[in-house]
């Protein structure tokens, strides 16, 4: 914390931003510490690399932010990401569908998965955990069925999403930024976004204030699905092929990013910027540990500890503020 304030002494605005946002402060500390510990960390190439590593998690996490703000949870995002990418590759390769149409179909798959989740939750009254856990199984299974278990090549045009612009700026980072801005605008400016906060804060009060809770949940989970589809397409583009086992376990990273970013799992709180910071913390940490040649086994331990610490610090800071 001391280090971060030294770096930013002249910028009081930045300081107040850090004070208000514990996770951002943690990210700054992490970046400063890693730059001191490894000369390779603070280079443009490496930082862009971190951005690419963060992109898929961040995009998934933006979608999860919507759901978590309504007080729900979406465990299916990783599987939906894989299924969407798989459908894109499969329709383009096997049925010869032009890539723009195939992309639209893939996004539609994400939306449909989200809608099914929402119908089960809002109208079937299933707990979100169970509904989306079921969807995780179904989507992952369908990805395997469609691909018969082996990777399918992505259409070349779509694979450019994994490239760089001018050999420099990675497209995934750009997509992440765009999706982040969309998430922030949805949350802050749209009816649905404001309704998400109200529903997560007090569903009954929201309903009695005329918010159509069921319909808003449909939109929320559909958004989560479409963000998952985008993440899946970006991931597959980087690998140049859609793989049925892609993004396995990413739903937990996404949830971790959202929570590290200051959202509450009980709903009503959360921000797109926080989620971005959360995803960056995870990516910076993995990248830094690699640079420091920490073994992959120990990395898992460190990341687990950091997740707990980040959320703990934030909780303590908020309690102190009351």
């Amino acid at each position: 914390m001391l280090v971060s304030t030294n770096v930013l002494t002249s910028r009081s605005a930045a300081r107040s931003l850090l004070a208000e946002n514990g996770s951002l402060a943690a990210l700054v500390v992490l970046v400063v510490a890693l730059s001191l510990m490894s000369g390779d960390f603070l280079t443009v190439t490496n930082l862009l690399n971190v951005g690419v590593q963060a992109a898929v998690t961040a995009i998934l996490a933006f979608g999860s932010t919507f759901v978590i703000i309504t007080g729900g949870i979406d465990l299916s995002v990783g599987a939906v990401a894989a299924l969407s990418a798989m459908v894109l590759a499969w329709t383009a390769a096997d049925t010869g569908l032009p890539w723009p149409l195939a992309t639209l179909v893939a996004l539609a798959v994400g939306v449909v998965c989200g809608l099914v989740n929402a119908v089960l939750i809002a109208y079937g009254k299933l707990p979100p955990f169970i509904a989306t856990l079921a969807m995780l199984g179904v989507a992952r299974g369908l990805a395997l069925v469609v691909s018969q278990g082996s990777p399918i090549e992505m259409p070349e045009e779509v694979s450019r999403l994994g490239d760089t612009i001018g050999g420099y700026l990675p497209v995934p980072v750009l997509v992440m930024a765009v999706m982040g801005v969309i998430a922030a605008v949805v949350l802050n400016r749209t009816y649905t976004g404001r309704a998400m906060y109200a529903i997560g804060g007090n569903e009954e009060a929201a309903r009695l204030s005329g918010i159509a809770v069921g319909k808003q949940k449909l939109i929320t989970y559909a958004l989560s699905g479409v963000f998952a589809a985008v993440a899946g397409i970006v991931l597959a583009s980087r690998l140049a092929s859609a793989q049925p086992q892609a993004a396995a376990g990413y739903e937990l990273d996404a949830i971790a990013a959202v929570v590290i970013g200051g959202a509450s799992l009980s709903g009503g709180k959360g921000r797109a910027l926080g989620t971005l910071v959360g995803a960056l913390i995870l990516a910076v940490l993995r990248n830094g540990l690699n640079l420091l040649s920490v073994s992959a086994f120990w990395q898992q331990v460190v990341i687990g500890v950091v997740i707990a610490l980040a959320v703990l610090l934030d909780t303590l800071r908020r309690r102190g503020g009351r």
Partner: protein
Amino acid sequence: MSQAREILRVEKLGKRFPGVVALDGVDFDLREGEVHVLLGENGAGKSTLIKMLSGAYQPDSGSVLVDGEPVEIRTAADAQRLGIATIYQEFNLVPELTVGENLVLGRPPRRFGLVDTRRMHEQARGMLDRVGVTVDPRTRVAELGIAQMQMLEIAKALALNARVLIMDEPTAVLTTTEVERLFGLVRQLRERGVAIVFITHHLEEIAQLGDRVTVLRDGRSVEQVPADTPEEELIRLMVGRPIDQQFPRQAQRAGEPLLRVEGLTRAGAFADVSFEVRAGEVVGVAGLVGAGRTEVARAVFGADPYDSGEVLVRGRRLPGGDVRAAMEAGLGLVPEDRKGQGLVLGADIAENLGLVTLRHATRAGFVDRAGQRESAGRVAEQLGVRMSHLGQEVRTLSGGNQQKIVIGKWLLADAHVLILDEPTRGIDVGAKVEIYQLINSLTASGHAVLMISSDLPEILGMSDRVLVMARGRLVGELKAAEATQDSVMALAVTEVEDARVH
């Protein structure tokens, strides 16, 4: 009484929270076998004081003495050891466990390491007997009524050998007969030497039950008076100025009917309920708790479905179970459970005030948040909400101010018929009068109010007409002039068999 031994004494107690001085020198003493009433408006410091006595907060200054010895109450366990038990408005019961399990929670009788269910139920029965409750210890707590849960809490406290029993507004949620039973028990406990700290907003209860009264105002103890002090004097001490009129109703000439309900029925909840509410009117709905008043209100508003009958607003029929349609037609509901159903506690004032109008402030999916904030600011000012700024979390407001927010969101939406369910429950005298004045200004501008209340003086003081419900039926209608406590109560206890809808 004056020779009775002093158990608890509090001297110059002070407590500050960031930005607020909650307690600023409170003196209080409690003797064996007395009922000592703590009186004060919301925010006067009653809750802070009892939280310090029960170990939830630590005082910043001053001292607490038990049996003449200075003590520090750092945790709930400390309070328990000193024999101090607190019964909060929100009960500390586990609804999914049985009565017996709740009574011995944390220390169940064991046999071979397993819970000895038979002995647990025996113990529970003994504990229930002491408070005169006849309920099977195997019943799940969730199935009990509120009054029974309260008795259960008292039984729990007694089982821990409590010498000091602190009760935070125990009568707020009880019906008249339940209050009588509670008072009977409290008197018995007093006979046995238990010292009771009793918090209430119902002034008439003070003379009935209390021995002494300590009045708190703005975090200070302003005076200690005997319980038979006249109500006007108590109010003056509490608010620091005399209140001319507790119920300042200014009746209007009734205009066209705005809301008409015809033969509304839902099996098991209410049957054949018909009434109308005209522009400029306040129609009170009286009845015992469980008479079906809240259920009817929610059905009218579309929050719950109904089986048959119809709801008409300005002659147009509303679809059942559709909150949105009811809202669009001009109905508004201020629900009974302010925190659970009326507010998003973690959101700020502006956000809560704008909840109903959110949809109308949306163009092409985008919300005009600046406009929303501006209107919220206007209404907050009009309602005299005491707050630091619009971004303040609603959670941190006092009950009266929270209620103003719930009403305020319907003012913003310009609801023509406002259904108020227990609008002043748990709200202090000063804020109550403000809400009554708000009702006046609403009806003066041609709005109509349907007011459900279990506070009979409030029903009589504020309504132009009184509807009485009993066991799911409307059993009578009285004009303001002919309604008295007795006439309303006589109707409220009507048996269903001879009930006839007017």
